[in-house]
């Protein structure tokens, strides 16, 4: 085939644009010009901004009031001296702040901290405009959000635990400074490229598990730490670190890599969509998924499949062991449960059941990596030559085991074995509940809302969120009975075992469609 035959000689000459230094826009100018063009085409409605700000202020005030309201029972709970032993308010303060910082660092690394919208990455980044000018608004946003989140993470626990106003302000300032240090530190990793690999994420994942484990160690081995107030000289250190990191970050914004900006824009878009549709699975995928990097952990595991059942088990096990966040989450849940039962009121009775059912269900959900993947992509189950019920029933195995591991850890800490025999079939219920959660599908927004004095209730959303949790609560009622009475009679164990069978059948149930 010749060029003429292929029709290639018909094009007219194109213009040959040449860049002119004097005409060159800076990043800030290009960003502002885009905003002006957009504003011209889509004029803002009068008062819209004021209304949005007003809504945010009212919402924040309501959250603060709710938080203050919950503070009194939390203080009572932690201070109840039925056995004279507990984690102590100071430990609760420290764990809350540490977990908030680790979570903040994870989010900062995934969604920024400096970034651009997807359109900005596509249209601005390849131009000659400087990246500092393009990305500076995102830096300002990140700084404000990180300081605000730090203020809340530092100040709210202190407020809950009855610290005086001056102490609350000092703790809040400490949290704010640490929040800024975390965000700016993530920014330094971003501009130096050190945060682009898996290393920083792995460290943070380890920390996510290490904080509750350290908390457990303190709760078991040290006297109850009282609520603390940071002395003001201590504030100097995080402020200095944050200032230094901020200076390095903001002066090197031109070193931001286009590839990293693209990945972050994609994650941010996924996270925004998940947030708008209240899709928890989508949110965790956006924030925690490892990207295209292939994991080689236990490479022999998929090869152990010998039939449909073992294929499902091998696939789900592979996904689980290659999900560091799920594994770290399991450790964190086990340690958190063990810390929680140090509070006297949670060491027995209905409080113990609440902890067991809560962390057990969360452990099962953490272990349901495979069922979640199948729930989000129905084609996966259709690859197995089995019906949907049998497939879902087999998929309960790993969530059951992870729930059992968490329950066992809590049981070992609390030292009571009365209800352990009941807890084993209860783990089956919790695993089944996690599978029901995994297969709950998208939110049914077409369900009518219910009008209440407090406003409209989105019924479909509520029903969606309860799917799975309902089974966890109802299915562990025999466990609750055992925990309240402190005696696991054979009849209670038998009833819990029956509930376990029923739970698996319920979780595996699939509605027939016409």
């Amino acid at each position: 085939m010749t060029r003429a035959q292929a029709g290639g000689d018909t094009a007219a000459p194109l213009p040959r644009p040449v860049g002119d230094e004097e005409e060159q826009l800076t990043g800030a100018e290009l960003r502002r010009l885009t905003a002006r063009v957009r504003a011209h085409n889509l004029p803002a409605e009068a008062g819209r901004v004021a209304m949005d700000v007003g809504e945010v202020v009212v919402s924040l005030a309501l959250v603060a009031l709710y938080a203050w309201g919950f503070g009194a029972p939390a203080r009572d709970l932690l201070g109840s001296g039925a056995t004279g032993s507990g984690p102590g308010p100071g430990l609760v303060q420290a764990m809350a702040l540490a977990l908030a910082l680790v979570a903040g660092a994870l989010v900062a690394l995934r969604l920024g901290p400096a970034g651009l919208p997807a359109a900005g990455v596509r249209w601005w980044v390849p131009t000659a405009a400087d990246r500092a000018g393009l990305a500076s608004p995102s830096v300002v946003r990140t700084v404000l959000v990180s300081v605000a989140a730090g203020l809340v993470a530092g100040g709210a626990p202190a407020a809950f635990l009855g610290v005086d106003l001056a102490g609350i302000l000092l703790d809040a300032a400490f949290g704010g400074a640490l929040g800024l240090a975390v965000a700016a530190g993530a920014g330094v990793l971003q501009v130096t490229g050190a945060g682009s690999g898996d290393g920083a994420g792995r460290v943070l994942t380890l920390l996510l598990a290490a904080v509750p484990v350290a908390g457990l160690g303190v709760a078991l081995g040290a006297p109850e730490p009282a609520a603390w107030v940071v002395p003001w000289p201590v504030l100097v250190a995080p402020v200095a670190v944050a200032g230094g990191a901020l200076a390095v970050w903001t002066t090197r914004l031109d070193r931001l890599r286009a590839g990293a900006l693209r990945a972050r824009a994609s994650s941010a878009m996924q996270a925004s969509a998940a947030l708008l549709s209240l899709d928890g699975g989508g949110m965790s995928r956006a924030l925690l998924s490892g990207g295209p990097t292939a994991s080689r952990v236990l490479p022999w595991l998929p090869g152990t499949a010998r039939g449909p059942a073992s294929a499902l088990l091998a696939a789900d096990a592979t996904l689980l062991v290659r999900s560091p966040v799920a594994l770290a989450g399991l450790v964190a849940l086990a340690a958190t449960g063990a810390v929680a039962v140090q509070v006297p009121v949670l060491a027995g009775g209905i409080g113990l059941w609440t902890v067991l059912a809560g962390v057990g269900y969360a452990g099962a959900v953490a272990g349901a990596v495979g069922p979640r993947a199948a729930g989000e992509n129905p084609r996966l189950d259709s690859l197995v030559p089995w019906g949907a019920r049998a497939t879902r029933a087999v998929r309960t195995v790993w969530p059951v085991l992870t729930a059992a591991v968490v329950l066992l850890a809590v049981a070992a800490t609390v030292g009571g074995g009365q209800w352990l025999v009941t807890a084993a079939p209860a783990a089956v219920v919790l695993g089944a509940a996690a599978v029901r959660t995994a297969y709950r599908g998208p939110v049914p927004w077409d369900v009518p809302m219910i009008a209440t004095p407090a406003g409209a209730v989105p019924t479909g959303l509520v029903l969606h969120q309860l799917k799975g949790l309902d089974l966890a609560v109802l299915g562990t009622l025999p466990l609750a009975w055992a925990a309240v009475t402190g005696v696991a009679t054979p009849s209670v164990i038998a009833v819990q075992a029956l509930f376990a069978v029923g739970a698996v059948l319920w979780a595996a149930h699939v509605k027939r469609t016409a």
Partner: protein
Amino acid sequence: MTLLELSGLVVGYGGNAVCPPVSLTVGPGDVVAVIGTNGTGKSTLLRTVLGLQEPLSGTVRAFGRAVDERERGFRTRVAGVLDDDAFFPGVTVREHLVLTARGHGVRQAGAVTDEVLDHMGIAGHGGAMPHTLSSGQRRRFLLASALVRPRDLLVLDEPEQRLDSAMRGRLGGLLRAEADAGTAVLFATHDDRLLAATGASALHLSDDGAELVAPADAPGVLAGFR
């Protein structure tokens, strides 16, 4: 003069190579098509050339320097179009292109944009919002974004995708004209007619290695595994 030089370049993800080591030299006016079956790493290779991801091993040099897309000098001379379309809400097709041209300091950006829009056959859609375009028109629009700005090296990932046959024919002539004007063109393609129209030599990626195929033989090689 060498504009682009790949030396023992291996690309991939997470330490896993997706194509064999590639060595290639591209000078002004050269047109090189990257061909290969699905999954042979064509797009990954182009992303690496554009500096959007790091090579696993080997080197990529453009204009005598290691590729670093953060350098302004690199961005002013390299235009790339991959298969990613994201648009500013409330900004029209023409305005997107004018912004691109202004971002590169192009004088009379509006006039240049109008000329390119006309050339790409979407002059009548300049005032439209990008999301209202058909997929083929959107492809023309994205290609136009590489033509409203200065360029010494043009990198395109399957530019023929979603284009009708008439536009594919014009695209061949357009790429040839680019090369005749001194631009080096590197593009991935599955279209042997486009390959023939551009008169490109082909970098054939396969499990057996990377092989440079002469322009006369390239369409035949591509048709052989297409």
